């Protein structure tokens, strides 16, 4: 793999071999997201990653389970806590890590950073740092599929904080009205930054709230990846069969701070510790070992393979070049735009010289 081609085949999940039970893949995927983000936190502390960094530690079962129900051609719209979603949709760890380093080999050539990961090839549409801002985009992607007669689904992830935003209500209403093929996934981690659910929502049963828009809506244990996968699969099948949009609330918890600048004054340590008892990775690992699907030796191999991918991503990001400063203003207009063609003419006019 060269610096110019950071994308790797999405099928390659470290720690998973063809023929392994699908649960092993889910475990390996959650582990990759966990270890990748743990490294991000270290690299943030070391100053290699700057800006805002929001990690998904504790919530991995949600994206992992939902993503297992999607086809490669389905679209994903996510939030600013989306490193895991990007990896699970098939972006390479290299492209994601290099983006966080602000390197030209990053998925957005260093323009996006942690909060704005994108990849056209895997139909990963961000990476949106405006709470609720991704929902309208998702329904538009689904509308295009409807108008073009394509059998695709758009999965839209957002936190429970977004359900207080107008864009949630406008978008779910429109999607339900037009029966668009969207899976709305609410990642309810109980705190919108530092605001507890009961302090921001008059109706804290979010599925009940969503159901007011006349779409199938239910809640699932977001710490149980198998339950999430089963629920998502059911929803996606129904959507693909023409059943219109569905809403899934995954009840989960963020084990770490909101971002790297969060002293966590708004919640008790005991609450965090209690949720950690239901760590989604430990739950599945215990189950797979308990039923004899995996041995401790297999887990060690999985950890080693995941670590190798994370090491490789960090090394790649470290060694990658920065974007050329001369290219600062690229990607504001499409290369085909006449704006770019005329720019030298306008510059010459300002200088008062013949172009």
């Amino acid at each position, binding site marked *: 793999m060269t610096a110019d081609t950071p994308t790797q085949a999405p099928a390659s999940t470290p720690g998973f071999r063809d023929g392994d039970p699908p649960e092993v893949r889910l475990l390996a995927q959650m582990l990759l997201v966990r270890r990748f983000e743990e490294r991000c936190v270290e690299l943030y502390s070391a100053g290699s990653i700057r800006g805002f960094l929001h990690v998904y530690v504790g919530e991995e079962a949600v994206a992992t389970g939902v993503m297992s129900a999607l086809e490669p051609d389905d679209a994903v719209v996510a939030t600013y806590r989306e490193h895991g979603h990007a990896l699970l949709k098939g972006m390479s760890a290299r492209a994601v890590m290099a983006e966080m380093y602000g390197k030209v080999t990053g998925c957005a050539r260093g323009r996006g950073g942690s909060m704005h990961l994108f990849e056209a090839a895997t139909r990963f549409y961000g990476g949106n740092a405006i709470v609720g*801002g991704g929902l309208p985009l998702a329904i538009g992607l689904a509308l295009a599929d409807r108008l073009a007669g394509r059998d695709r689904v758009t999965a839209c992830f957002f936190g429970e904080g977004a359900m207080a935003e107008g864009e949630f209500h406008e*978008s779910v209403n429109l999607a339900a009205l037009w029966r668009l093929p969207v899976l709305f996934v609410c990642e309810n981690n109980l705190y919108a930054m530092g605001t507890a659910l009961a302090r921001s929502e008059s109706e804290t049963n979010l599925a009940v709230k969503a159901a007011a828009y006349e779409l199938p809506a239910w809640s699932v244990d977001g710490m149980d990846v198998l339950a999430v996968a089963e629920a998502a699969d059911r929803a996606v099948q129904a959507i693909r069969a023409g059943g219109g949009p569905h809403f899934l609330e995954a009840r989960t918890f963020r084990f770490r701070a909101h971002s790297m600048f969060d002293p966590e004054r708004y919640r008790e340590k005991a609450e965090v510790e209690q949720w950690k008892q239901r760590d989604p990775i430990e739950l599945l690992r215990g189950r797979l070992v308990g039923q004899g699907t995996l041995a401790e030796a297999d887990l060690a191999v999985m950890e080693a393979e995941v670590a190798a991918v994370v090491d490789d991503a960090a090394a790649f990001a470290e060694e990658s070049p920065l974007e050329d400063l001369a290219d600062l203003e690229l990607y504001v207009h499409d290369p085909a735009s006449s704006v770019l063609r*005329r720019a030298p003419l306008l510059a010459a006019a300002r200088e008062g010289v013949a172009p």
Partner: protein
Amino acid sequence: MSARRSPTARSGARATAVAPPPPPDDAAPTSPEPEAGPRTLTYREACREGIRAAMLADERVFLMGEDVGMYGGCFGVSMGLLEQFGPERIRDTPLSESAFVGAGIGAALGGMRPIVEIMTVNFSLLALDQIMNTAAALQHMSGGQFHVPLVIRMTTGAGRQLAAQHSHSLEGWYGHIPGIRIVAPATIPDAYGMLATALADPDPVLVFEHGGLYNASGELPAGAGAVDLDTAAVRRPGTDLTLITYGGTLPMVLEAAERLAAAGVDAEVLDLRTLRPLDDVAILGSVRRTHRAVVVDEGWRTGSLSAEVAARITEHAFYDLDAPVARVCSAEVPMPYARHLELAALPTLEGVVAAAERVLRGGA
């Protein structure tokens, strides 16, 4: 289009936010085939025929917005299109600007060519997140992976006694944002032909239709079609000074030029047409010839498009100037309802003539 709008066209007979549908003859579908000869159309009809032609030319094009279908558009622009194209392509939306503008962005990403209509520029503020944080930014923050070929049409401007939440000219605000193109058709050929070019643009284009122009009529030449979105147009050549304007104030400025001509002053009138990016070739070229400039902008003066134009002239043509640049803008008040107050708040013919005379005196 007639060069002069009557004073009544400026003050307007429409006093409701949602104008009544135009009379039935205005709604009669016209032939989709190109007319053999020139035709006389209203600005409203020119906008409609532009949409119709675009939809016939490309199946990916669809129109979406509040009351664009069964109602026929709040200003009657899309009258008859639902009957011709059906509800999948002429889509009435709920009152949810952010959702349907964002849906337009998503649909554009998904390969469609949406035209999103927002009733007025004031309502577009409810969709500002989608326009600014997504449509304009997506290409750059995705490192060039995604572009958004979306067209958003909206009504702008005052003159119809619609008061402080339906009357502003905020295109200058939008002109601040990198990543989008801003156009303001002021003539019948532009009202018809800008849309096709906007739809062919790979990036988001915002089209500002001045509400005071919808009833104006003029000629669409035979064979009229797509027009460029890059250049300003000299609507009246002149040698003594340059009157720079766009959109709804163009007819009034042309009338001011005639008033000045009667007094022996030969004014050039430049229609900016595209507000972002500004055509520096035309602006600076004209001012370097005439050495004097008056910028007429229905927006507020502070931080306005007129400020940008004046700044560019002083930055790049300062030594060509024989007088300071003058500006004629709206009074810095939320637009009042009462007719005499609204008229007093808006740029006037007399104000433009007075500014021109001041500039001709060297600014004194």
